[in-house]
């Protein structure tokens, strides 16, 4: 018998857990201001997460999906994208969204069950949060198909979790992206847990990146706690997609340092010691260590940054809590360009009762 196909999967890491470079850093990382920009947004994400959880615990926010632990992946991907690209998030990639202009107020509004939060004032072409698992993947492939047909040098970037890679829609999207050489990058955020299912029970594959191979597209793994590595890998994948080279799957290895959502309690299923070990590899610490070693960061700057982030968050919470209640017309105006007569009648009825509490 002869071998007709083999595969290999590369793993990229540029900054190790102690903040030491493991290879020559790319050009953007030579510029301290670029790295500080990444670090500031990662810190904002971390502090915002804590505030959002506190808002939920005091009845001022609905169920919330925290992002703590994922900051390097999320911010690294955001930094690698161009404004004209389109993002197809899952539901916790705030670092990418904030980089692209989604606001903290919009995030809070959405998680309080108010769809006005998905009406982004900034990145109009970005898709909203996607709670159904994997349905964003074919949508991203479709958007990439549109970019290709129009001859636009734009890319779609879709997120999915480790659990989502078991869904049929995941494979369908990869197949379409491979068959048509579409300008799309799929980011698998492998944080070890699909709610309570560990990745070892999710798949028998050694890596999730290799799921790309069957679709005929390259898959690469990156240390998802290394923001420099994530940005470098995703920039390469996007450059390739933009120049007609087709799709890439990037598996970012990270860890969910929080519960799945505020309605979850991970202590009920997470093995003892795993969380503590993961905190030793967390993304903010290693970038801070690197910046300190480079003489670019100190305690005073850290304190200033936290105060500045807190002020931003405070302003966002005030804006969110003072948002006026939606009007009844909102139920109707986003459905039809020309509402049918029955709907118009219902709209009039709703207006008559709006505000009466009945």
């Amino acid at each position, binding site marked *: 018998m002869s071998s007709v196909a083999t595969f290999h999967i590369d793993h990229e890491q540029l900054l190790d857990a102690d903040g030491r470079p493991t290879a020559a850093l790319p050009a953007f990382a030579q510029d301290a201001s670029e790295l500080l920009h990444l670090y500031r947004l990662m810190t904002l994400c971390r502090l915002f997460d804590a505030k959002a959880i506190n808002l939920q615990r005091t*009845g001022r926010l609905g169920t919330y999906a925290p992002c703590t632990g994922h900051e390097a992946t999320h911010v690294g991907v955001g930094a690698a994208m161009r404004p004209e690209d389109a993002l197809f998030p899952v539901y916790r990639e705030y670092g990418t969204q904030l980089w692209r202009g989604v606001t903290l107020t919009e995030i809070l509004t959405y998680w309080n069950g108010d769809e006005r939060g998905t009406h982004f004032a900034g990145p109009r072409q970005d898709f909203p949060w996607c709670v159904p698992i994997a349905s964003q993947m074919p949508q991203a492939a479709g958007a990439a198909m549109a970019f290709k047909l129009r001859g636009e040098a734009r890319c779609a970037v879709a997120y999915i979790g480790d659990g989502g890679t078991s869904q049929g829609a995941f494979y369908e999207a990869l197949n379409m992206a491979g068959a048509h050489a579409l300008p799309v990058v799929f980011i698998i955020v492998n944080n070890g847990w699909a709610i309570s299912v560990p990745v070892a029970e999710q798949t028998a594959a050694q890596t999730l990146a290799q799921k790309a191979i069957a679709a005929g597209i390259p898959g690469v793994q990156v240390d998802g706690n290394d923001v420099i590595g994530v940005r470098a890998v995703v920039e390469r994948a996007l450059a390739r997609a933009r120049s007609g080279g087709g799709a890439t799957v990037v598996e970012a290895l990270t860890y969910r340092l929080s519960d799945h959502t505020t309605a979850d*309690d991970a202590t009920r299923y997470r093995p003892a010691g795993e969380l503590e070990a993961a905190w030793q590899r967390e993304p903010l610490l290693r970038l801070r260590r690197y910046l300190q070693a480079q003489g670019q960061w100190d305690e005073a700057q850290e304190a200033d940054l936290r105060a500045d982030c807190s002020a931003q968050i*405070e302003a966002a919470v*005030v804006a969110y809590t003072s948002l006026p209640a939606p009007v009844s017309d909102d139920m109707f105006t986003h459905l039809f360009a020309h509402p049918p007569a029955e709907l118009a009648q219902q709209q009039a009825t709703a207006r008559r009762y709006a505000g009466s509490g009945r």
Partner: protein
Amino acid sequence: MARFNLPDLGEGLQEAEIIRWHVAIGDVVAIDQPLVAMETAKAVVEVPSPHAGTILALHGQPGDTIATGAALVDFDTGPVAGNAAGTSAGGVVGHMPTSDAELPAAAVRDNSSEATHTRTRAVPAARDLARRLGVDLASLRGSGRDGLISVDDVMAAAAVTLQPPASAMRPSAPYGEAGELDVLRSLRRAMAQSMSLARDNVMECTVVDDADIHAWESGNDYTARLLRAIAAGCRAEPGLNAWYDANSQGRRIFHHIDVGIAVDTPDGLLVPVIRDVGNRTPDALRTEINRLKAGARDRSLPPADLRDFTFMLSNFGVMAGRYATPVVVPPAIAILGAGKVSRDVVAVGDDIAIHRRMPLSLTFDHRCVTGGEAVRLLAAVIADLELPN
């Protein structure tokens, strides 16, 4: 004053139990400072402070169950208290609205506000029910938004009207010194719930017999021998080492035998689980039994040690009692009870002898286990127990 009502701490949770307060009356607190640990049906949750100010009142003691929307903490958020808190704040946000109107309407049950409605407001189904039950809507204060009367409100009012006077529920004069009503909490409450579940669902059938342990060599460990015997029984009849899912009418048979052992604690019944009893040595079983019993008594066992048993053992005979009808807790389908060992007069051939015997009671869920399966398991248990070692 600002009142903080208990919000829904998960998704659609009706209540939570106070585990411990982190603050006391008179404390000055900052926004987001931890106030109290609350246990819900899903998790133990730290609840932070929504206000900066001085604690005026804490509504409840550890162990109390608080309904979602009921008062939890009152604050003085006056300027002096607020400033004092501000200087010590590690909090992120300095000013937050202090009114409970900021709570989602569904989580608020405001019983203090005066009704200002000129007309009684009730949902149509509540009006209809009130008419049929003869309840005067005007006499009710609705629990809904702006005093809206719900079906539940009408039912509650009707129950007050129709039930015998409350005094009839109390002991009459000679027994007047009977204690206060002690609301079940924690483990005892969980026991009440799982026993009700068992009563409502399981078709229980109990079969009893004795194991003659006259041949036992000295040094045999009762619990370890019982666990080994259960393993032997389950190997003979794997169908009882299983869960029954009534919804799908399916039985899930396990390859590993994880035995839940009923442990009597002052707080109520606890059932720690010994994993894979079929593949452990007697010494290993004893070590694990000791660890679980100690952990059960001081309540230090993690949830992972208290769930997913595939078979149960109640070794009640160490205290008293020969036979019983032990209760199967779903989704498990069988429980073995071991009674008090005693010296019995037995027939040995044509002679009379005195042997030590262990009474056994096996309860099984007859919905999915046949009597034949149950007694074959019991026979295998007895055969193993009767071995000298």
